[in-house]
């Protein structure tokens, strides 16, 4: 039985009971419990089922390395799958459910997989399920997916009830890990005045030391911890954070921290998680070490646990995993567990020490206290299915012949320790194999380096492979001082406090399989990766089949790829692989350590940027007015623009047609504020403009406007718009709505990389102005009615601009047209936008003023034969394709794209050219349709000779009109082309001129 002990439990507040449910069953624990310790206290050792064979599984560890005890936590919008019970702090009302079983944890149909285990070795799925072919998609794969998958998916309509935030921090020294090494390193760095940030993933300072014992300055480790924390708290330059894990180390000292603010108190005010985004001068990883399991048959039966974890549960949480615990080990540390168990009044019938020579002082003490110790022995097999009932003992040197069976209800195993080198390794830190301690340790000579080639990560303490208290504190002190120095601070001379050295310990012996000659039946039951069900036999099979690289083995067997990322299994697996290959372990090498250290919530990664804050919507000054009219809005760039303004009961199509007619008949209004407005100013602005645009812009007279084309370096048309010359050294460039930022960046790129000596500023003033199109035969009348500026033909001719006070509002008026109508665009300061708009509406009443949206805009420009960036262009079209040669200056020596446009394919007469298209039956050509030619090409594809670039129903012509790019198009006027529809039927369209409306420009010139 696992149970709560009368004594122990240094982290508990035994007076405070906490009730929770597991699989619907009500249970109680204490404040300070983890879910795992509380479950143990309720005799719930079995906590889950494994991934592949659905084996019953209990908790094996006590921290972040736990592979088995994963639960679905919470309900509804706060449900979360795959939460580790060992790192889940217990809270009142917690509700947890075990995973990966049906119908229940105790009776799981999926467990039949165990019976077939022989047929499901590593990689079996690569060798079967191939016939018949269609079965993969419809039979095999759905079955495999359903039986894998671990935790339940949150409900499809879940909207996370919690919030998250990001925190940006800068620090000289970041210490990851708040055990004694981390605290000492922080003290050493902090005393120099350096800014120090310390992150500790658990809710407690001090790490393992209080459990493992030892003295600092003659006092228990706990006293040192309290004093250190007090001293650090008193320093202004030091920040301490609990429940905050160092998640990843990236280039240039960039580190992610993951702070779990309210996982232990769900629903509390404020964010649930906080993602720390830290720029650190130096990073110290004081992340401790993790104990390794031993590989013996049945090492996954619930009740078999890491020796250190058993010790933790007794000391920290006052729970025992069982009354009688057999300890099995290859090192001295596990003896501490035996002694702790004795101290707690529990029974340790036997210690199996695989080393022929046995242990040191701790072993003597265990013997002296009456524990039976067998050396050179190991476990042949664990008895029991859902719970340990005993162990069968064998000689470690043999093949597993059973010498004796010993009943017990828990097994404490220790295969040695592995430093937590993850964060050290994320950014390229290299490791050395220490054969004496059987562990990979950070190689200080090959640390991650920053931009200057100097190291920026250092490991210390157990994370650096140091295990004696004294050595750890010294190592940490040096690391803290070195980091302080590296960030320009003067560390004092204060050394580390003196601590007790580990007593006389016998060396560890490498034991990668127990017993050493275990037969195949035993190896098939000796687990390496608990969660993914990878056994010794699987790794051996992979190696035999040629998957010899450690990465191949990992991928073939899935070793180390579970949610614990191999924290317990990687080294054991690597050792088994090396043995088969007959190579030393370091030659096989490790797999790459990748962030995050343990999984972090997607919610935290997304942070505040969700919902309305995901990509904030840019709003024009009349955005609210549009919404109040129930405009149908479409996203364009980061804006929303009205597509049309449907009246009650009106379809979008009808609204668009009405808007076009009303504008052409009388007066339309367009909110054009979203169009980009870039000011180019400076002594060199003229020649810069000539480089940016294909047209000549330097000779544009002040007061005049010119339609300009802008190409990429590759010659492709990237943006267009009207350019106005505001003064001698100032040009105003209009860009497309989506193009403003891109064009601005394009200009800056050239200014900063090519012509950095030209004297020019470019400013994006898009949002400084509200700009409205006043369009239609009555546009002049309405503006004259507003009064204040002479807008007669003589005063303001087509393609000119002027400034003045319209209706009392400072305005800049451009006489330009994108519809073919008499039309003006009026820019006013953004603050006056809404006021001006209201005045336009008011004055326009008598003309039946009609606001129109983007679709009416598109139709009118198409009727007039104007191209649209994004429709007629797609990144592969050059101005010459669109008959825009008139806008390309022949006089200029150069402009961006000119050289590219001279390349052979750019001047090829076979390039498709812009034409108008009219369906023979008057219908609307389908969007994106292609004109087919004769036969098929060398790859069997239908030959095509043109395509539709934009297509509309024109209310003005009362028929479908389209523009398109067609092979030799302009030379083929009148020819009829076939355009297949998606249903295979054909639409026929005639090649025509692409200007339908007012070809001679009489309307816009009135």
């Amino acid at each position: 039985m696992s149970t709560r002990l009368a004594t122990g439990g240094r982290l508990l507040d035994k007076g405070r009971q906490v009730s929770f449910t597991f699989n619907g069953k009500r249970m109680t624990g204490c404040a300070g419990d983890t879910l795992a310790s509380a479950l143990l206290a309720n005799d719930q050792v079995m906590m889950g089922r494994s991934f592949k064979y659905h084996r019953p599984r209990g908790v094996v560890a006590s921290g972040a390395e736990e592979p088995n005890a994963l639960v679905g936590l919470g309900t509804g919008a706060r449900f979360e799958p795959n939460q580790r019970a060992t790192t889940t702090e217990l809270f009142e009302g917690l509700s947890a459910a075990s995973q990966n079983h049906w119908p229940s944890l105790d009776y799981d149909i999926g467990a039949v997989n165990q019976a077939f285990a022989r047929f499901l070795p590593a990689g079996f799925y690569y060798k079967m399920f191939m016939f018949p072919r269609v079965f993969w998609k419809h039979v095999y794969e759905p079955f495999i997916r359903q039986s894998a998958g671990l935790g339940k998916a949150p409900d499809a309509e879940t909207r996370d009830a919690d919030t998250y935030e990001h925190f940006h921090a800068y620090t000289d020294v970041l210490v990851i890990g708040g055990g004694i090494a981390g605290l000492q390193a922080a003290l050493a760095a902090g005393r120099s005045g350096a800014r120090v940030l310390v992150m500790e993933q658990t809710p407690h300072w001090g790490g393992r030391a209080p459990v493992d014992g030892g003295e600092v300055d003659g006092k228990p480790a706990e006293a040192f911890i309290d004093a250190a924390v007090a001293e650090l708290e008193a320093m202004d330059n030091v920040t301490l954070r609990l429940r905050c894990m160092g998640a990843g180390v990236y280039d240039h000292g960039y580190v992610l921290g993951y702070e779990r603010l309210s996982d232990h108190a769900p629903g509390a005010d404020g964010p649930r998680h906080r993602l720390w985004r830290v720029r650190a001068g130096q990073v110290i990883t004081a992340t401790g070490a993790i104990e390794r399991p031993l590989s013996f048959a049945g090492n996954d039966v619930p009740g078999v646990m890491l020796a250190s974890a058993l010790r933790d549960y007794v000391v920290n949480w006052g729970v025992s995993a069982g009354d009688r615990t057999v300890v099995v080990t290859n090192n001295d540390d596990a003896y501490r567990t035996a002694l702790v168990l004795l101290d707690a009044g529990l029974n340790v019938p036997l210690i199996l020490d695989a080393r022929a020579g046995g242990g040191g002082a701790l072993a003597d003490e265990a013997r002296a206290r009456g524990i039976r110790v067998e050396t050179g022995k190991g476990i042949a097999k664990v008895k029991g299915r859902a719970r340990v009932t005993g162990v069968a003992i064998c000689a470690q040197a043999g093949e597993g012949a059973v010498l004796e069976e010993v009943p017990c209800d828990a097994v404490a195993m220790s295969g040695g320790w592995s430093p937590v080198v993850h964060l050290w390794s994320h950014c390229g830190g290299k490791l050395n194999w220490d054969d004496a301690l059987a562990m990979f340790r950070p190689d200080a000579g090959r640390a991650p380096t920053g931009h200057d080639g100097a190291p920026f990560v250092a490991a210390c303490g157990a994370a650096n492979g140091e295990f004696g208290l004294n050595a750890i504190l010294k190592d940490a002190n040096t690391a803290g001082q070195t980091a302080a120095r590296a960030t320009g601070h003067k560390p004092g001379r204060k050394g580390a406090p003196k601590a007790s050295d580990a007593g006389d310990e016998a060396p560890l012996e490498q034991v990668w399989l127990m017993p050493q000659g275990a037969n195949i039946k035993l190896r098939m039951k000796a687990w390496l990766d608990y969660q993914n069900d990878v056994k010794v036999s699987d790794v051996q099979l992979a190696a035999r089949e040629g998957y010899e690289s450690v990465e191949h083995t990992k991928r073939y067997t899935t070793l180390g790829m579970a949610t614990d990322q191999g924290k317990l299994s990687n080294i054991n697996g690597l050792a088994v692989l090396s043995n088969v290959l007959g190579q030393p372990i370091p030659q096989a090498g490790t797999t790459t350590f990748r962030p995050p250290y343990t999984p972090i919530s997607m919610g935290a990664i997304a942070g505040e940027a969700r919902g309305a804050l995901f990509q904030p919507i840019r709003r024009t000054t009349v955005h609210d007015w549009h919404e109040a009219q129930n405009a149908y809005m479409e996203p364009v760039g980061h804006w929303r623009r009205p597509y049309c303004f449907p009246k009650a009961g009106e379809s979008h199509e009808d609204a668009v047609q009405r808007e076009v007619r009303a504008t052409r008949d009388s007066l339309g209004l367009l909110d054009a504020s979203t169009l980009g407005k870039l000011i180019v100013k400076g002594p060199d602005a003229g020649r810069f403009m000539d480089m940016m645009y294909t047209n000549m812009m330097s000779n544009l007279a002040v007061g005049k406007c010119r339609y300009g084309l802008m190409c990429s370096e590759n010659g492709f048309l990237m943006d267009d718009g009207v350019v106005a010359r505001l003064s001698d050294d100032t040009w105003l460039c209009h860009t497309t709505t989506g193009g403003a930022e891109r064009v601005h960046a394009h200009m800056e790129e050239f200014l900063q990389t090519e012509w950095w000596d030209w004297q020019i500023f470019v400013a994006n003033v898009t949002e400084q102005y509200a700009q409205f199109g006043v369009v239609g035969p009555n546009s002049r009348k309405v503006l004259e009615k507003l009064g204040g500026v002479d807008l007669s033909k003589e005063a303001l001719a087509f393609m000119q601009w002027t400034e003045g006070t319209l209706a009392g509002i400072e305005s800049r008026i451009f006489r330009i047209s994108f519809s073919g109508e008499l039309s003006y665009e009026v820019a006013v300061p953004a603050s006056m936008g809404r006021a001006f708009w209201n005045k336009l509406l008011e004055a326009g009443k008598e003309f039946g003023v009609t606001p129109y949206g983007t679709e009416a805009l598109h139709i009118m420009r198409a009727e007039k034969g104007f191209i649209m960036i994004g429709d007629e262009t797609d990144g592969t079209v050059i101005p010459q394709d669109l008959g825009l040669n008139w806008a390309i200056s022949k006089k200029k020596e150069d402009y961006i794209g000119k050289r590219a446009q001279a390349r052979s394919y750019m001047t090829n007469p076979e390039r498709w050219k812009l034409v108008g298209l009219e369906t023979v039956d008057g219908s609307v050509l389908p969007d994106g349709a292609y004109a087919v030619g004769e036969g098929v090409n060398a790859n069997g594809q239908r030959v095509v000779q043109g395509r539709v670039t934009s297509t509309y129903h024109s209310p003005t012509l009362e028929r479908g009109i389209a523009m398109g790019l067609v092979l030799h198009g302009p030379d083929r006027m009148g020819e009829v082309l076939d355009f297949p529809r998606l249903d295979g039927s054909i639409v026929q369209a005639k090649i025509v001129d692409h200007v339908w409306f007012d070809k001679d420009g009489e309307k816009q010139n009135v």
Partner: protein
Amino acid sequence: MRRYSAFAIAREAARYHSGWGKAWSSPEPKKKYDVIIVGAGGHGLATAFYLGRNFGITNVAVIEKGWLGGGNTGRNTTIIRSNYLQDPSAAIYEKSRSLYETMSQDLNYNVMFSPRGVMMLAQTQAEVRGYLRTAQANALQGVSTRFIQPAEVKKLVPIINLDGPRYPVLGALWQDRAGTARHDAVAWGYARACSDMGMDIIQQCEVTAVRREGGRVVGVDTTKGAIDCDKLGIVVAGNSGVMAERAGFRLPIESVALQALVSEPIKPCMDVVVMANTVHGYMSQSDKGEMVIGGGADGFNNYTQRGSFHHIEETVRALVETFPMVSRLKMLRQWGGIVDMTGDRSPILSKTPVEGVFINGGWGTGGFKATPGSGWAMAELMAKGHSPLTDEFSMWRFKEGKFIDESVAAGVAH
């Protein structure tokens, strides 16, 4: 070669799987080969495979500096689709997709090609028009795609949020025979088949120089010594620029990091692949249950095989917005690969200025799907000096300005 099947497994189970042989052998290099392929990624191995299978050329070595399949082949998010816009792309990607359909049977290795359907969301009017155009083009190219309405999107992807406050889903381009495959298995399956044809796969061996005589290739220098050859195929993805330099020419290729990440495994909740290009993210669920997630490439050149966190953040934001329940999942691991980007984001399959040297690279962020088709075409190019599938992908197209630009239809091309 020992055939794989359920019966073989049953037979082996009786003797505890002691009888399986090596999937591929790891020989020492010979003095000379007819053809050397540099790079044992999927593309290099597929090239070797089709040289043997289609042209009977089996005196071939595939030389790999690391472990086979350890480059982008083993790092990608395994999306396979052929709904490309431009004719040359659609031709090679569709050829490839159709080869995936029977790859498990052809290789006798289950690569788990799963034609579960790929959906590309249209979230702006411009995207709607772009995908309508792609659907039109695909119909004429023999690629089966369809533009679907939001209701059908929701039916196929119950976890999607159609009315995100930012970009509503307006429809999607849907290819129902597109999907995913097991990336490692593709490399392993080809390696086993090549080895079985007598080809040598030489791992842990870097090609350090290309030896030339009179403008012609005669062999390579490697970390395992000099090896002669008549023809050389460079198929090294992110290292294309480096290898080209060793062969004495330059390529219009830049190498940048592309990252991906997976969530912890959960029970099946999404059966298709969804790509949301407006917000820059895509997601599918692996057979293990992990949500496999990717996004845009890093904006700076590098060779480290790790990327910056900022892209991960952007991608996850996009997906939380598109699939709100993702917020309650956790990121299990992130990684990066170095992808080779050309100026038009389309690959190069080409002869080179050095006679006898051929290059296959520039697949950038989207070449896993092309693996068999690329191998098929490259083998033809190397064996016959020309292939209709590669004609348009010559490296000289950049000089002519004859780009094959796919960004037209979609911002990201995976």
